[in-house]
């Protein structure tokens, strides 16, 4: 826990985030470009889905990061509520937009994948509907945290909303088991995969690339927020003097 408190210091955070941001951006972009190139040109087509299986390399990382982003909001919200670290509230706000964008990209790529595979752009099945709900919950969180900041709120309401929203994550995870419809069951988990390695291997590169870019975007948004807070605090001090 002392480590957490040390990193919650904005000066310490900035001393780490400043050199880390360009490294994460460059490494993330390189891994993502290599993984995308490999996924588009170096793997065989699937015996059932044909070439459309290549959407896997971008769809799966966006789904994982869409859900991982909300986990980040929930963890930051707990840290904020328990230890009152302002940096935790800034982190939760910074994660919300990239999380929402990745949830939206997951829905869009899934829909594009569904048209040639299932013959439809959309189906109201458990996985698609619960992911759409997560996207809407992200939008609600963005609106709530912005309204809270504009009214000089203490950040407790968005934090509680961030924790409550985690109820959706197990529903998304197990939706393909509870309600089996068009979306396939869990074929890739952290420990095993039913996808052959000759098709699967570029996914590691795109997953790492997207993840590093996600962290870089969160760090940049946190740095921007910290700079704005600093400017506002100085302006208030100058106005009061």
């Amino acid at each position, binding site marked *: 826990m002392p480590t957490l408190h040390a990193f919650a210091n904005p000066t310490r955070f900035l001393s780490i985030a400043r050199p880390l941001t360009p490294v994460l*951006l460059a490494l993330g972009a390189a891994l*993502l470009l290599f993984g*995308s190139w490999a996924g*588009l040109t170096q793997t065989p087509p699937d015996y059932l889905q*044909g*070439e*459309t299986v*290549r*959407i896997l390399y*971008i*769809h799966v990382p*966006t789904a994982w990061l869409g859900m991982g982003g909300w986990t980040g909001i929930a963890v930051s919200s707990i840290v904020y509520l328990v230890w009152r670290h302002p940096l935790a509230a800034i982190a939760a706000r910074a994660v919300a*937009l*990239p999380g929402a*964008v990745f949830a939206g*990209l997951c829905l*869009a*790529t899934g829909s*594009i*994948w569904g*048209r*040639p595979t299932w013959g439809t752009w959309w189906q109201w099945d458990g996985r698609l509907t619960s992911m759409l709900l997560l996207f809407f919950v992200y939008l609600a969180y963005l609106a709530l945290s912005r309204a809270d900041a504009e009214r000089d709120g203490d950040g407790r309401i968005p934090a509680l909303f961030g924790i409550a929203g985690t109820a959706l994550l197990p529903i998304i995870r197990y939706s393909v088991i509870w309600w089996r419809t068009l979306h396939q069951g869990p074929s890739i988990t952290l420990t095993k995969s039913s996808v052959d390695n000759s098709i699967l291997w570029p996914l590691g590169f795109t997953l790492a690339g*997207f993840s590093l*870019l996600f962290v*870089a*975007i969160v760090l*940049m*948004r946190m*740095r*921007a*927020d910290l*700079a*704005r807070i*600093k*400017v506002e605090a*100085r*302006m208030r001090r100058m106005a009061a003097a």
Partner: protein
Amino acid sequence: MNPWPFVIGAYALTLGGTAAMAAAAWIAMRRAEGQAERQRKK
């Protein structure tokens, strides 16, 4: 049905969206940190 327009469309949307979001975050960060630095020097 030719699958490639779907594959290319999905990649263009995802890679373009991620790049646009990273660029917007970079510009907003540089602008905010620049403003803080200019204010500090005053």
